[in-house]
């Protein structure tokens, strides 16, 4: 049995190969992860649930199957699952109080596919309540701290998943991305975060926030792990009418090597689009562009008007869909409800008032307003039309070019606002915080695949912080290929 030197640097692929070849067992992998878990949790508060007994049982079951001759491409790989993605028997709380005590009776399709391949969902990740937020400070479990600077946020809404991979606890984690919630924390935590194209992965089992925008996304340290995982998790699901699968098959070989760079032509952003970007991030972005050019990639500078209109359009649509999707949380069938209520209205109002955090309430109110009679035309219907024009603009670009290169986050992760673990810490300037999504919402509005990759480090206020940039392309395969060029 081989010795695992440092589990925090092993890729998922290596882990699974080791289990398949008998170099180590799934159980030993899980034990090594569990050994590190408390420390990572203390540092980052990235998890909301874990069960060592359950994890080891799952590992042993995988070991049995492998011994019995089963071929499992992800055998023994420990993963972390964002708390808004269902795993049967595990709590599903989305980090608010309104689902306290709720355990999902079924697993999401993506998790089922991963389990079938031998992966072990051994912990659930902290996230912004109902996936609404960019700093992971709205969680009832307290904020997630950045593994590189504990005074700063890990990003949101999938902060816990990003921190878990960023801290080297697990090689892969699942998050969800509605407006940038996988890519943003990936940039903040110095890892890779991929949002597949809309419909690539089944949404069954993902607690819906913005149904026409949501996708389950994947965090990884190693690009090759993504090419391993994507074909597995993108399989057909007849129970998701919006599933369409990957836009093009993944060629693992193409991702492993830098393909002929000179055959690529890409778009980078014009200065006018980059005004709000922090100088260090801007410098790193420019440097990467230069490196690509040196490799022979043809890069054209373009100004993308769609970026200006994206935020408002996104927030009108996402909050409308969120208000709709969260209507089911009424305290009647699951979750806590007020102990005394005089009427049906009182019960529902009480459950929602007590169960939802401030940011969620804010977005529900906004979403209800933009759909309400008299305002729907001016706000929601207008946003629908704007979305179509934004999508057209991005789709035209990815048709004409192999890829679009954008920053991911315009700024560095902010410091954690208040050390308030009660769940409704109010960031000052909430609306300006919405602005951190400026480069990410385009991919959700247009349904295109997009990925954030780490591009360097900088020193800021005495901490070494990672930086990321984004690739958008017409297929997940193309995104991965370009990611290889950037690495």
């Amino acid at each position, binding site marked *: 049995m081989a010795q695992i030197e440092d589990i925090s640097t092993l890729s998922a692929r290596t882990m699974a190969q080791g289990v398949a070849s008998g170099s180590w067992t799934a159980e030993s992998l899980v034990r090594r992860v569990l050994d590190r878990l408390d420390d990572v949790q203390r540092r980052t508060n990235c998890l909301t649930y874990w069960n060592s007994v359950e994890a080891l049982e799952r590992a042993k079951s995988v070991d049995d199957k492998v011994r019995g001759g089963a071929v499992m491409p992800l055998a023994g790989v420990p993963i972390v699952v964002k708390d808004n993605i*269902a795993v049967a028997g595990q709590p*599903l709380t989305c980090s608010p109080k309104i689902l306290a005590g709720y355990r999902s009776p079924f697993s999401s399709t993506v998790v089922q596919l991963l389990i079938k391949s031998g992966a072990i969902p051994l912990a659930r990740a902290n996230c912004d309540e109902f996936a609404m937020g960019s700093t992971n400070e709205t969680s009832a479990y307290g904020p997630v701290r950045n593994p590189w600077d504990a005074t700063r946020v890990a990003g949101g809404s999938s902060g816990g998943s990003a921190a878990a991979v960023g801290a080297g606890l697990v090689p892969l984690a699942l998050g969800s991305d509605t407006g940038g919630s996988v890519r943003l924390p990936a940039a903040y935590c110095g890892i890779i975060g991929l949002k597949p194209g809309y419909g690539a992965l089944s949404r069954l089992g993902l607690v819906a926030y913005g*149904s026409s925008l949501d996708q389950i996304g994947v965090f990884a340290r190693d690009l090759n792990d993504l090419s391993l995982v994507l074909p597995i998790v993108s399989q057909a699901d007849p129970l998701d*009418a*919006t599933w369409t699968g990957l836009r093009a098959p993944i060629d693992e070989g193409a991702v492993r090597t830098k393909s002929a760079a000179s055959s690529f032509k890409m778009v980078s952003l014009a200065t006018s689009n980059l005004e709000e970007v922090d100088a260090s991030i801007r410098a790193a972005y420019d440097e990467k562009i230069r490196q690509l050019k040196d490799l022979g990639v043809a890069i054209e500078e373009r100004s993308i008007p769609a970026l200006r209109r994206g935020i408002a359009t996104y927030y009108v649509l996402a909050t409308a869909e969120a*208000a709709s999707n969260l209507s089911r949380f009424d305290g*009647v069938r699951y979750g806590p409800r007020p102990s005394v209520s005089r009427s049906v209205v009182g019960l529902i109002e009480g459950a929602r008032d007590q169960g939802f955090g401030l940011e969620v309430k804010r977005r529900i109110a906004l979403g*209800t307003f933009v759909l309400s009679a008299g305002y729907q035309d001016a706000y929601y219907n207008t946003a629908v039309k704007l979305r179509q024009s934004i999508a057209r603009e991005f789709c035209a670009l990815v048709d004409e070019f192999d890829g679009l290169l954008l920053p991911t986050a315009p700024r560095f992760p902010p410091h954690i606002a208040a050390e308030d673990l009660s769940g409704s810490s109010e960031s000052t300037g909430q609306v300006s915080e919405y602005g951190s999504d400026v480069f990410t919402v385009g991919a959700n509005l247009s349904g295109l695949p997009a990925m954030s990759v780490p591009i360097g480090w900088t020193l800021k206020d005495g901490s070494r912080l990672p930086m990321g940039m984004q690739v958008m392309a017409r297929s997940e395969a193309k995104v991965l290929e370009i990611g290889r060029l950037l690495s």
Partner: protein
Amino acid sequence: MIQGEAVATNRYQPVVGLEVHCQLLTEHKLFCGCSTTKADSPNQNTCAICLGLPGVLPVLRRDPVELGIRLALAVGAEMQEWSVFARKHYFYPDLPKGYQITQYDRPYCRGGFIRLQSGTQVRLSRIHLEEDAGKSIHEGASSYIDYNRAGVPLLEIVSEPCISEVSDAVEYLRTLHSWVRALGVSDGNMEEGNFRVDVNVSLRLRGASELGTRCEIKNLNSFRHVERALSYEILRQQDLLESGSKVDAATLLFDPASGKTQVMRIKEASADYRYLDEPDLNPLRITRDWVDRVSTRMPTLPEVLRTRLSEEFGLQEDEIRLVMNDPALTRYYLSVAALTSASGLRPRQLAGWILGDLMAIVRRHDRTFDTAPIPSEEIADLLCRVARGELSGKLAKEILSAMAETGDSVAKVLERSGLSLKRASQDLVSMIDDLIRASPAEVAEFRKGKAKVLGHFMGQIMRQTRGQADPQECESLLLARLKAAP
């Protein structure tokens, strides 16, 4: 209770629109695989999807759409190739997702009509598909929710507000009801709430184009209730307007005990359901091909059937209604008709036998025509023999009774009772021959062309056979033997 007809002389004209929610006769719910059959206990036919648990998605099933297409074809509605599902939001414990998935501004069909017997056409505005909510059960200080019904597929059938007579409203509903049953679209069981009626009524000054304020009477579950509620409400509104008051827009419930409508809630403005196109479902595509396939598969359209029953089978209005109201009887009738079509059996004979004799037997045995004591093939056999002159009507009735009691075929009954066809005729022939020999004078009269003497012979034969003989058979045999006699 004064009927709506009395209002016709008044200066106000009722303007009535009807909305029917009709539960579809499918095995499964609209968006999940749960069963729609009546469950023994609450919350038995539920799953994560119809309970709206976090993370679920709806998946549209084809069967409910097929049934929707059938009804659309029957009423001549215009099928929309593309239609869209929408979320209708409101909070209530029996609505698991906090929204109902329905169709809003793009239903799957528009228009259509149902023709009443008077020739009046009641135009339909639209029909659309939607899911039902669960049921609230109130017991004392507690309320319980049963989600067995949540997610069950419904058709909402909306008429134009073009009805002005109470009788027309009732006839429209009865017709629609019989059609959905005949088409296999719904069992139309009103007691179980599978066919629910909402009535919208306002009064308009005759000759004026401006409509009055509308009130909605909800959840009427019998035709009688519709009739009484509508009549009462028209009078109530009329009294208000005549006395100078105005009608307040309201949602009303009908109280059968008092015969009055009561305000459920005042409608200030129309409720804001914040409709949103359903992002989890693709638009519904109903192709020409699909419609054609449904058309070949579906039971006979009511109009076509009605025409057949009237023209081909010579049925009267009440008989037609009787047959069309009972899908099992319809099937039975058509089956027997097909099996006896070449026998020479006359339509009125068929009607008499099925709707008279057999109906009595079926009722006496407390069965339905699907479980009739005599299968359609057997009665067809019997009727063919009658048509061929092999059996007298009277004998056939006896045989019919025997068949119902014993379940035997015609042949077996005849065998059992010792009656053989040939022998019966032979007996008759010798009887006639004896008669002819015994009445030479009458025979001579007949030869001279006096057909009246036949009556003498017939009388004799009837007396001797104690009325058992079939008159037609006797007559033809008599003539034959008379001609053959020396």
